[in-house]
């Protein structure tokens, strides 16, 4: 295995740089996935059948809290990667921990939000609009859930194995994923919630 020490740790082997490029391409596919969901959402947004419209069910408070939690977590994972770059294992772990905590908080509020929708009669089966709304939010939520466990595993590995070329590579890729979910959320926040409430 060739090691190039002039590069940052996460890029230091050929395998590492392959993985990072591969992950960027994967994010390209993810963009298409969410783009399709958004396109379907805009197509179905007015097809509410006998069910409620977005304006009738959206509540700003939990959505704002979710937004703040996720945006902050995107910032803390950035700090975590910075700490990883300067080789500070403790700080890296701390920032990872905070990120995951914020992610869990986001999920908690999202579950609360979903329960609210079900209570006001906006279930998956109610109308085409509620179905695509819950599917789009749910797909993002599932991504965050998946990311939570993924991040947790990486945290455990950093703890056990330290900041190696592999754990650094994994952390960096995880941070790309996490930032991506944040970007998707910004679109969801603007085009689903804000547009829907107007």
């Amino acid at each position, binding site marked *: 295995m060739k090691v190039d020490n002039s590069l940052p740790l996460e890029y230091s082997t050929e395998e590492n740089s392959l993985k990072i490029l591969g992950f960027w391409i994967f994010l390209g596919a993810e963009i298409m996935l969410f*783009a*399709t969901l*958004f*396109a379907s959402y*805009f*197509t179905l947004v*007015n*097809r*509410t*059948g006998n069910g409620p419209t977005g304006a009738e069910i959206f509540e700003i408070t939990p959505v704002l809290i979710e937004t703040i939690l996720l945006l902050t977590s995107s910032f803390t994972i950035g700090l975590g990667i910075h700490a990883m770059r300067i080789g500070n294992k403790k700080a890296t772990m701390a920032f990872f921990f905070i990120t995951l905590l914020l992610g869990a908080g986001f999920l908690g509020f999202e579950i609360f939000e979903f329960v609210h929708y079900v209570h006001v009669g906006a279930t998956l089966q109610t109308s085409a609009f509620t179905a695509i709304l819950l599917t789009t939010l749910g797909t993002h939520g599932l991504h965050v859930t998946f990311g939570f466990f993924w991040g947790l595993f990486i945290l455990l590995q950093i703890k056990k194995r330290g900041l190696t070329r592999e754990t650094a590579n994994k952390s960096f890729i995880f941070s790309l994923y996490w930032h991506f979910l944040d970007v998707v959320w910004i679109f969801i926040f603007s085009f689903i919630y804000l547009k829907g409430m107007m």
Partner: protein
Amino acid sequence: MKMKWALFTMLLALGSVLSGCEPLLVLDPKGPQAKTQADDIMLSIWIMSAIVIAVFAILIFMLMKYRASKQSKDYEPPHIEGNAIVEAICVGIPVIIVIFLSILSVKSNYEVEATPAGYEDQEPLVIYASSSNWKWHFSYPEENIETVNYLYIPANRPIEFKLYSFGPITSFWIPQLGGQKYAMSDMVTTLHLAADVEGEFDGRNANFSGEGFAKNTFQVTSMSQADFDDWVKEVHETAKPITEETFDKLLEPGHLGRSTYTGTHLEFSPAPEHNHGSQDSNTEESEHQHHDSNHTDEESNHHSNH
């Protein structure tokens, strides 16, 4: 090489069949819309045949001239990167053909989507054609008549079909009068047709809709306006009125013969004209708006699929 000629003769045979030994339904139009389409088809067949013949000729020339058995043993083929002029010609000629066909295609699009040429000054007869598994229901709101699986129309008068479905997507098609259009459950589509002559034509659902699809057909009879008026009068004297109950029975899956009723099911089971979404309203007044909303839909689709 024998095969090449065999293929070539096949093509010629195809051409001669198409050009009228025995008229194929689509190429035997009985109305202005079908005529436009048949003319487009024949013209494109001729242009495409020219392209096919050109490609065949170049291929045969290359294979005859440059096969290994015709060359000396020590012949070494040269290294040729490509030639800007040759490649420009290869791009240029197809581009010209495509531009020509595009203009033709756009022009025909607007023709088949409008009242048939030559009939613009006449009031169209509006017929609601709705499909259910596996039947066609024809409602004549002005005449206050409904038929199942057969269609009487006056010749030399534009007909405006309003299509929708009580189930799977179907496609309303009378090959000799014009091309098909989908009938769907959540919106009404419009098909403009007209028959230039009196006669009998076959019609069918062309879009797969399940078990009874193959036999989902209907008969079209085109007659003079006087005969049509007589028929309407006769129906009003003899046929029973359609009720919600009889109509629900008609909707049950299966095949039925012809039947005739007075009144239309539109009274108790209206067409899905003003449903949610952007692609529903097809009335004359909102036609323009309809195009616009459609366009923006398309735009958003485009953006999201980059």
